[in-house]
């Protein structure tokens, strides 16, 4: 088998061919026994490797279901409440055992004079504090913003040809339109890609809406439209497909970074870095170490 035949078969089995190419391949297999046999031989090995990849997905799923209490035995379900009570009791005892300080002083004239000075000093201090704080924040934000931009540029890569999420082979809804729009994106024709994505009218039941939001978000990010990118990627993140969800999370983190929403970015990258099997786990750890 030549390298190009290999790639054609591998793409066919991965569902990477367009509907027309897929159909052509099926027709060719019906007429060519040798090709059919080659596909079946490739399929057996590919499927086995696919199982090894899928196992990682279910390891991550187990952790989450376990955390949600969906794998626990019924009698174990109340345990967390018991342990919470145990945690709070000592704290209450500590609070109760603290000595009571006198709160009200009766020395009226002295208090009155002190109060007047106190509020004058306090007002002046607050004013100076706000002034200095504002100056500091302006300067700090400038530096932080520069650093965020540097980190963003270092980590942002467009979702390239082989890097793009694959459409599940079963997605028939808007499949052609989606494939074309994704193809435009892969070939860096962002304007055409966005136009094509905008014409797709996905139904609320299917997954097309999430792919649409994901790519429109990526395009917006490349065009420095961070608010739009965040909005779209937050939608894409709700996709019921782990692969797409994880990619959306990564790019959403980068969009937060670019928008100087440093806390949101840190929170999301921490979540990614702490999720076993997340496709961007390592990258998120590296980014956190470097940037924060």
């Amino acid at each position, binding site marked *: 088998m030549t390298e190009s035949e*290999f790639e054609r078969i591998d793409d066919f089995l991965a569902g990477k061919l367009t509907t027309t190419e897929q159909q052509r391949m099926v027709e060719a297999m019906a007429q060519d026994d040798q090709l059919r046999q080659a596909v079946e031989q490739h399929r057996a090995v590919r499927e*086995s490797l696919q199982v090894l990849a899928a*196992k990682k997905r*279910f390891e991550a*799923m*187990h952790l989450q279901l376990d955390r949600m209490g*969906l794998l626990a035995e019924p009698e174990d379900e109340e345990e967390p409440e018991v342990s919470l009570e145990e945690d709070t009791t000592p704290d209450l005892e500590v609070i109760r055992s603290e000595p009571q300080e006198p709160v009200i002083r009766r020395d009226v004239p002295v208090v009155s004079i002190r109060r007047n000075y106190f509020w004058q000093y306090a007002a002046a201090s607050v004013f100076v504090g706000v002034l200095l704080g504002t100056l500091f924040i302006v300067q700090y934000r400038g530096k932080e913003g520069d650093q965020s931009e540097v980190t963003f540029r270092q980590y942002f890569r467009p979702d390239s040809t082989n890097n793009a999420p694959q459409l599940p082979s*079963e997605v028939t809804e808007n499949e052609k339109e989606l494939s074309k729009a994704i193809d435009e994106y892969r070939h860096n024709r962002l304007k055409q890609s966005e136009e094509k994505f905008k014409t797709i009218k996905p139904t609320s039941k299917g997954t097309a809406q999430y792919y649409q939001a994901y790519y429109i978000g990526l395009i917006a990010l490349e065009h420095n439209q961070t608010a739009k990118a965040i909005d779209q990627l937050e939608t894409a993140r709700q996709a019921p497909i782990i692969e797409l969800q994880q990619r959306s999370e990564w790019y959403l983190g980068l969009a937060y970074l670019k928008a100087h929403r440093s806390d949101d970015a840190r929170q999301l990258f921490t979540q990614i870095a702490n999720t076993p099997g997340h496709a961007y786990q390592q990258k998120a750890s590296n980014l956190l170490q470097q940037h924060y």
Partner: protein
Amino acid sequence: MLLPHNPCRPYSTDELLYDGLKQNDDRAYACLYAQTFRSFAHYVQSTQGTPEHAQDAFQQGIAEFYVAIQSGKYQVSPKARLKNVLFEFCKRKWINELQSARHRKTQTLESYMDQEEENILDELMTLASNVEKVTLLLDQLGKGCQQVIRLFYIEEKSLAEIAEALEYTPKTARTKRYECTEQLKKLFWKHN
């Protein structure tokens, strides 16, 4: 992965659940996982397995089940409930493991499945046996080939990422993937 508190809510029937699985919806797999795992873990522990054995065997089983569904090898049947088939499949794999060298014990295979379910299970067991073989053969390849195959097919990295990670040119990464996969296929079919 964000899962709802009740991942089974959209799947009131087996047909709806099967549609969700076919669409590779995480909620459907989470529902099937939550519905089946506990019974299987009980079964494994009743045969002196540990919770870790149960988890590992079940994850391997559901991963194979997933591939069978995606490839169309598993077709929904009104007679075979999804969770029953998955449970029975994982159970048979576990019994095979018990009968392997490490836990040599004789287990009687009690089966209450009808012919249609038996056929599905045979198909799944063939896939499981292929997976076992590929896993063993992968270790026989050279280190470089193992890395390329693992990164591309298991870690699902792109060729560009592989090239970067292994310091290849993109063209070399592409050719390596071709040569190494062909090598693995040859070994697989030679031993089949």
